[in-house]
């Protein structure tokens, strides 16, 4: 497949309050010892989605937008890794496909875990438990 190096960045500015201010507002009415868990999607969550399947990538992008996330998409793992390195601290979570031609998703997971300490959510159409457990 022709290498698609599109990195699109979309940021949705909504009228919704940001994640941090929601948390702040909620905690004033809760006891100081209680853990406050916001009950809405963290708007503005900075997500990097990595998937070589363009169709899936577009769907995930739209889903992320609907959740008011700040989404960046990438169809190549190696490009995604470089992006994460260049823009350290600019992402909150990575959503990655497992099977990709240029780099195994678990490989990406390893790099991201070691270098950036970012949470990585692995995705796959492969429903086998063995595939999931590999991520451990």
């Amino acid at each position: 497949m022709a290498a698609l190096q599109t990195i699109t960045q979309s940021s949705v500015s909504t009228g919704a309050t940001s994640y941090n201010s929601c948390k702040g507002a909620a905690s004033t009415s809760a006891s100081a010892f209680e853990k406050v868990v916001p009950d809405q999607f963290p708007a503005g969550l900075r997500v990097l989605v990595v998937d070589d399947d363009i169709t899936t990538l577009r769907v995930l992008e739209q889903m992320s937008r609907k959740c008011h996330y700040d989404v960046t998409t990438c169809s190549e793992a190696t490009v995604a890794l470089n992006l994460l390195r260049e823009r350290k601290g600019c992402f909150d979570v990575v959503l990655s496909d497992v099977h990709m031609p240029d780099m195994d998703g678990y490989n990406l997971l390893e790099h991201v875990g070691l270098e950036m300490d970012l949470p990585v959510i692995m995705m796959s159409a492969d429903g086998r438990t063995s595939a999931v457990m590999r991520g451990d």
Partner: protein
Amino acid sequence: MDRNQSRWQVALMRQSLFDQGYLDEQFIQLEELQDDANPNFVEEIVTLHYRDSSRLISNIEQNLERNPLDFDKLDNIMHQFKGSSSSIGGKKVKAECTLFRDYCRAENGEGCMKTFQQLKKEYAALRKKLEAYFQLAKQAGPTETACRSK
């Protein structure tokens, strides 16, 4: 044809795609993602899928001509095709993909070839149905986006 009648026809056609097992829940997810900012989202995704599919089907065909067959490679390509079909909710096609992969793992070349022929038939049938559906939907004009009770 009167507007309401057209919309009714579209709704009927849409429902039959689910009833006849061509589409599953994922298609509804796509419809729910469609909005004013992305008014043709469903069709856009389906078109992207067609593009991917053509390439993947061609790839499988080439690999099925090899002797001996590389089952790992075939399984790999089919995994991609299954993923792509899943994202538009192509239920019957997805089932054939799963069957094909089972044959790959069993290293059953004949099973692979037979299933692939069936897969291509299902894919062609789905494509035809969806093209007719989008055509009719366009003629009927914009409707409310799909919604379901929460």
